[in-house]
């Protein structure tokens, strides 16, 4: 019995559910091939948990912080610097997230929602 397709299906189903819950736009992901859907989905969950309170749910309506939909998609270094070292009211989050989590957040910010 080949378990791989079944496992893959389950993973895709789970991913679909996660994407629907966190609202990462499938259309937006379809247009950006730099990131794996799993990475974007992981970033979406991290964002919803830790970043949405200030930057707005799914980056919409940031009442108190930078509108991340306007973040230049070619400036990853700047993104990582601000995330890890902080800026203005944003505290340094370098000790909170590992490198793969920071990459996932970057993937979500660049490709997770309609800009």
């Amino acid at each position: 019995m080949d378990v791989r397709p079944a496992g893959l299906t389950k993973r895709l189903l789970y991913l679909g559910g996660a994407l629907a819950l966190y609202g990462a736009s499938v259309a937006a992901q379809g247009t950006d091939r730099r990131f794996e859907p799993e990475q974007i989905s992981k970033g979406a969950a991290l964002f919803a948990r830790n970043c949405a309170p200030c930057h707005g749910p799914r980056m919409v309506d940031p009442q108190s912080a930078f509108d991340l939909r306007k973040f230049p998609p070619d400036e990853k270094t700047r993104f990582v610097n601000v995330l890890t070292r902080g800026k203005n009211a944003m505290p340094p989050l370098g000790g909170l997230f590992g490198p793969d989590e920071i990459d996932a957040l970057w993937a979500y910010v660049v490709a997770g929602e309609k800009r």
Partner: protein
Amino acid sequence: MTRSLLSLGLLLFASCAGVVSAQTLEDLRNDGKNTDNVLTYGMGYHLNRYSALDQINKATVKRLVPVWSLSLDNRWGEQAQPLVYNGVMYVTNARWTVAIDVATGKQIWRTEVDWLPETPRVVCCGVSNKGPALYNGKVFRTTLDAFVVALDQKTGKQLWKSKAADWTEGYSMTVAPLVANGVLLTGISGAEFGIRGFIDGWDPDTGRHLWRRYTTAAPGEPGGDTWGPGDAYKHGGASTWITGSYDPDLDLVYWGTGNAGPWNPEPRPGDNLYVASILAIRPKTGELVWHYQATPNDPYDYDACWELILGDLKIDGGNRKVVMQLNRNGFLYVLDRANGKLLSAKPFEKVTWATHVDMTTGRPVESELGQKVRAGEWIEKWPGTRGAKNWPHAAFNPNTGLLYANTMHAARMYRFLPVEPFKAGQRYMFMEAKDPENRPADLPVGHVDALDPVTAQPRWRMPLQDFAHWGALLATGGGLLFTGKMTGEFLAIDADTGKLLWQFKTGSGINAQPITWTLNGKQYVTVLSGLGGLGEIVNRQKLGNVPQGGSVWTFALLD
């Protein structure tokens, strides 16, 4: 004769010593009688935020002018209530403790509070501090990274520093301490980061830890069976971030607890004692004498932390010693403060999460929204996540029997997200929220309300169209209310009508707590200016033209 002369001498010595040394527990109890001093958070153990002073009144307030201002060299926001003792004002914010000569506004000393720059990542709602406590020659305060500190009143030199909790696990402190029956009490913040809440008792002389009253019940303790299986109580929230009141006759401290964690209640079936509750505790031991839970299972971020105001009310023809709270959940609770019996619970704002409070059981009767939100649906809830009232403290005038409060009139769209395991330092909420789309543009965002505590009906409402107020209220014998706006105006309002009588624009936004006091028989009013806290966070873009930066402002009548 000799003996009486001797005792007279001793008496004189004692009274002189009383002037030069620090104040006593008796002075704390009598705060308000000597108007030269403001010794307690809330301007009295009862947290009435009322002063009988009346030089500044409805007729004279038009002559109110600033007499001095002092920079606090702080961009994080000012939320504190200053204290005054023997001509010196003590002010705190997240960065500094400052002593000021009240006559001139000159700084006498300031002592820095040092915390790591990443500490604010475990602070949900504004890097700030609510104020100091004074007792026996010391200034007590809490720090953002969860220490309790004692400084020398004369020099600002640190006398002791005790760790309450580890900030990397989500704990932080902004609360003003309370000295009751010789014990220093402090609360804790962090219910958005999966903490287990508590109230601590400390020896004010040495900083020795005396007791801890956890505010979530463990298995085997009373209430330990209200958390379902597992260890949800370990991350169950119930923070204690607003200073309690104290009745010295009953020797009971009243302290409210915050929201449950995570906001999504899926891992914590049950009432979850003692989240969103009012606790009555013995200050010497931390013993829990009675409790009342306002929002069982709290799925809505409905803290019951807000000020627990003590007063004497006529209810059903009898005089009752009560404790009152304008709860975040929209109900105004009145309880008998000796035994916790619920006397009244009426809505003071629009409430849709519950239909009413059942006066037999004391429990809220949830509307259909409770089922919907637990099933994962979007709901529109009133009050919104910021509550019908947030922390900005109400005032109570014992002569009119009215409460005065800065309230909020807003709903939020709200739904839960899947719960993930606790991770130290990360958010532990699992929800999302947004503003409803159909809100009429002319609907007031909040009010200043004069409320009958028992009916919760307004005597008058002053509608606010731009920003809800995020500062506390002060009521005076001059028939005035003092409060401030996020845009910086310090306001004097007619307490009988809600009419604005006077305003002065300070340097930044006001989200702090005014006080009034006297020097050489003249009345002064002081407030801190310095945009910060949750009110700033949720309005930061709209407040783009209000600069940050803390300062103290003191006002008096122009002679």
